């Protein structure tokens, strides 16, 4: 695996890690993934807490026998699908090209 990498290559990777280009890559990935994780975990926690502590609210009927609990639950499905789609689009368009460029630079130097 990685154990046969020599010191020189390790130093190259550290140099890449400290480059502006890599900092930009990390920023683009984290700027989406981290806040979005907080959003969906918070949104999910709100749903769980409502199921435990806001029974009357969850039991409010909206459409025949369909109450707030189902709509809230179905919105969790909708938000999951939406976030997955947004993430895929973000990574495809904003992160992949930059990652490919950095990888090409690094691997090009290997004369492979």
């Amino acid at each position, binding site marked *: 695996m*990685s154990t046969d990498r020599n010191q020189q290559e390790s130093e190259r990777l550290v140099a890449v890690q400290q480059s502006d280009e890599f900092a930009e890559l990390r920023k683009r990935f984290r700027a989406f993934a981290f806040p*979005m994780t907080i959003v969906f975990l918070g949104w999910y926690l709100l749903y769980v807490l409502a199921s435990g502590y806001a029974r009357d609210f969850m039991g409010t009927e909206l459409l025949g*026998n369909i109450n707030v*609990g189902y709509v809230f639950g179905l919105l969790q499905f909708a938000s999951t699908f939406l976030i*997955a789609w947004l993430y895929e689009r973000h990574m495809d368009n904003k992160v992949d090209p930059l990652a490919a460029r*950095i990888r090409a630079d690094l691997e090009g130097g290997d004369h492979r």
Partner: protein
Amino acid sequence: MNVMAATTEVSGGQQVLTSVLFLTFVAITLGITIKASRATKTAADFYAGGRSFSGIQNGVAIGGDYMSAASFLGIAGIIALFGYDGFLYSIGFLVAWLVALLLVAELMRNSGKYTMGDVLAFRMRQRPVRAAAGVSTIVVSIFYLLAQMVGAGALVALLLGVSSQTAKNLTIVAVGILMIFYVTVGGMKGTTYIQIVKALLLMTGASLLTLMVMFKFGWNLSELLGTAAEKSGKGKAFLEPGGRFGKDIVDAAGNPDARATLYSKLDLVSLGFALVLGTAGLPHILIRFYTVPTARAARKSVVWGIWIIGSFYLMTLALGFGAAAIVGPEEIIAQDPAGNTAAPQLARAIGEDFFGTTGGTIMLAFIASVAFATILAVVAGLTLASSSSVAHDIYANYVHHGDAPEGQEVKVARISAFVIGAVAIVLSIFAQKLNVAFLVALAFAVAASGNLPAILYSLFWRRFNTTGAVSAIYGGLLSALILVIFSPVVSGKAAVDGKSPSLVTDPGIDFHWFPLDNPGLVSIPLGFFFGWLGTVLSKEHNEYKAAELEVRSLTGVGMEKAADH
């Protein structure tokens, strides 16, 4: 089980048909396994299916690996008997995939090789971290495996209409032998194809039932819910949260018991945490990310997995409430008090409704076979994950310091699959008398408390080191285990008819001091805390390796390539 004969007698014709469908599925999967074995030559083939599956293929396989009998039969049963609360499981199990998608899948594909341990040990001292990763993988997988296999024994016996103890034991042995064969012969390649076949079967079965239920109720969800509530005898409360989790508890005198109510509600939150954070720490799910050629394909496969799993969990609403409305809780409880046969019973009832007795027989046989396929595929995935970890983490990297020849390593993986399978068979036969359904939730809790903190720290915290990784894994694992041992799951639940529903059924024995059934609320923060504490207590810090992991995980440089076939 004598009640069964009175309620839903399994006719001879149905028995034959179900058996034929079971055997057809077994024959197809054996064929796939043998075919896959011919294309399995290298270690990457055995562990990671040659990394040559497409995003869509792996996405379907993710669905296959993830949607266990607990999802299909268990959630349908909980909804059928307790109403709304089963839906909480569906939502937790689905939202959990966003953790895997946003934080884990791609980075793991870029930096690992065969096991969860590859990523955890990447920049650490190999042996201690490999050992911890191996132990945790085996513990999580065995818990999950036991729950599935014990369930399989009871279920298959029920569906085939044989209720003798010998039949149940034989079923467990047969399931065990099949899973050993799938894994040792077909490796990841064979197992992946089996997951794909199973996922397609399960989706077909669930869709068919859903369409029939919705058709019967004029495509009107409100009417389905209304009929289910009426038939449940619980009225509107059946359609609201609180039927099973987070109950408002009153004491014997009828006064609200504030403390018991608080614990009951905290238990719900605790379960919610374990469900949403456990998935991205399940070893048999994590190794799926290695079966595709690139991080982009790993991303695609998780997105596909989310669509499939999400659609399936949406359908559990129709299955569960359909079973409540059409079969009714009395008949379901008469067959299985836990409700695990609600979906097959619904299949029979609605089949009869549409196409008469023969239709009911065919539908029941079909859904029973789908359930059987579901169990077989999941246990194969679990056996593969644990045997890979024994061979790659423990044998090759812990015992042989990473110097074991590749052929030898794969041989050890095959032997491990055999041993793990045999152990699982024996344990399952002995565990049959116990209520082991809690083991699935426990597997999720251990994965969320031990594995997830170690994975996230590894990928996102540069300072993280060997002591931190080892502390997170063992600390989280032991916290979850110890809390469960001293919880009402094991002892001290109030007796019903002189028998406690805890694992220890003697109501005189009560050594519980932790009030919640689900340890996640405490053990997950503890796992993260131990990981942090271990890290700051040790001076070790390998900047080169940290940089290497970070660059590799985000760019994919130096990643394991797909095999050329």
